[in-house]
């Protein structure tokens, strides 16, 4: 099965593992991820201002490129996923933006939100299936207590992201179960780590990341997993709790027995 794939800027630099383990795992699962040619950075944050349009064009270009290939577009970084999905929603609902984008881009076939954007976790749940994934696991986690950290961007706003219940999600917990771990549910799993505030207000990021990690630790977590490079950075760097934080794709590749491959 072939999918267009949008890695995003951070997966080419500081979060190479997130990308590498996803590709190795996809291959092992019979999924062909074809990286979009000439993709541009999504900008990291979706601007909620309806008249902010130029900064959303890079997302429209990626969405249109996937449409041209007739493929669904797979994302991995939580921020890219959030931005692409919200811009895609704009391209069916924000009439003023749609007109301006069409007038500016002058594409032969104007883009109107046709591409389906799916996160790698949704690919595992909805295309592969967690039951099938379980059958392919060769190194199960052996009941390790793993805490899923959703953060903000995977789930909200839920009427657009439509991945899972925004207050009581299960997708990463189901993933952990499928690869042989025991999911740890804790109150702060969908609260913010501080995000980009780390750049100008480190103490603030320390407070928020520590709250998340203490909450996971108190509930018995031995390890935390995430899909977001900035969450991983904040928890690792700014969370005042010694608990390993990893990308979910690393555990996946390990479970599938492909972690050591290149």
């Amino acid at each position, binding site marked *: 099965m072939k999918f267009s794939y949008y890695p995003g800027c*951070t997966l080419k630099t500081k979060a190479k593992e997130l990308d590498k383990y996803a590709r190795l795992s996809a291959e092992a699962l019979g999924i062909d991820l074809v990286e979009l040619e000439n993709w541009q950075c999504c900008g990291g944050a979706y601007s909620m201002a309806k*008249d902010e349009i130029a900064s959303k064009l890079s997302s429209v270009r990626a969405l249109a490129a996937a449409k041209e290939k007739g493929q669904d577009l797979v994302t991995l970084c939580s*921020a890219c996923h959030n931005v692409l999905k919200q811009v895609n929603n704009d391209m069916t609902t924000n009439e003023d933006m749609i007109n301006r984008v069409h007038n500016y881009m002058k594409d032969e076939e104007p883009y109107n939100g046709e591409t389906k954007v799916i996160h790698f976790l949704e690919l595992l749940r909805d295309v592969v299936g967690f039951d099938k994934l379980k059958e392919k696991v060769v190194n199960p986690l052996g009941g390790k207590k793993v805490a899923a950290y959703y953060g903000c961007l995977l789930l*909200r*706003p839920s009427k657009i992201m439509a991945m899972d219940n925004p207050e009581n999600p299960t997708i990463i917990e189901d993933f952990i179960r499928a690869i042989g771990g025991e999911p740890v549910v804790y109150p702060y799993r969908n*609260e*913010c780590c501080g995000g980009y505030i780390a750049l100008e207000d480190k103490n603030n990021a320390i407070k928020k990341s520590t709250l998340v990690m203490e909450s996971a630790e108190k509930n018995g977590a031995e390890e935390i997993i995430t899909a977001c490079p900035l969450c991983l*950075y904040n928890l690792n760097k700014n969370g005042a709790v010694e608990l390993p934080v990893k990308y979910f794709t690393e555990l996946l590749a390990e479970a599938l027995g492909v972690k050591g491959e290149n």
Partner: protein
Amino acid sequence: MSFSNNLKENVIRSAGVDPKKCMKCGKCTATCPNGNEMEYKPHQFVYMVEKGDIEPLMNTDSIYKCLSCFACVERCPRGVEPAKFIEAVRVAKIRKQGENHLKADMIPDLLDEDLPQQAIVTAFRKYSK
């Protein structure tokens, strides 16, 4: 989208949500992870925009405290989605000449070796034009 000289109208149009739908329950501020750091809190953005009291909002650091975590957007029971007003005011501010909150030459001092690019591009999106 036509341009108006009326700041209040422009902010409401840019936000795309209706402050009059607010029932003053305060859930936005209660759920905001950064509300404690703000001079004007999310619920105050809603009623001050409704009153047309935009200038104080443009001149407060609170517009740079919103983390864009969408918690208030998700949890507002009336669909007012307060972060959209914070964003609209922030955008109105940084679009003005010389009002960039983050400048490129400030970046080297803020970097550490692990900081993901995502943090830098996001900060530029939020703080500068």
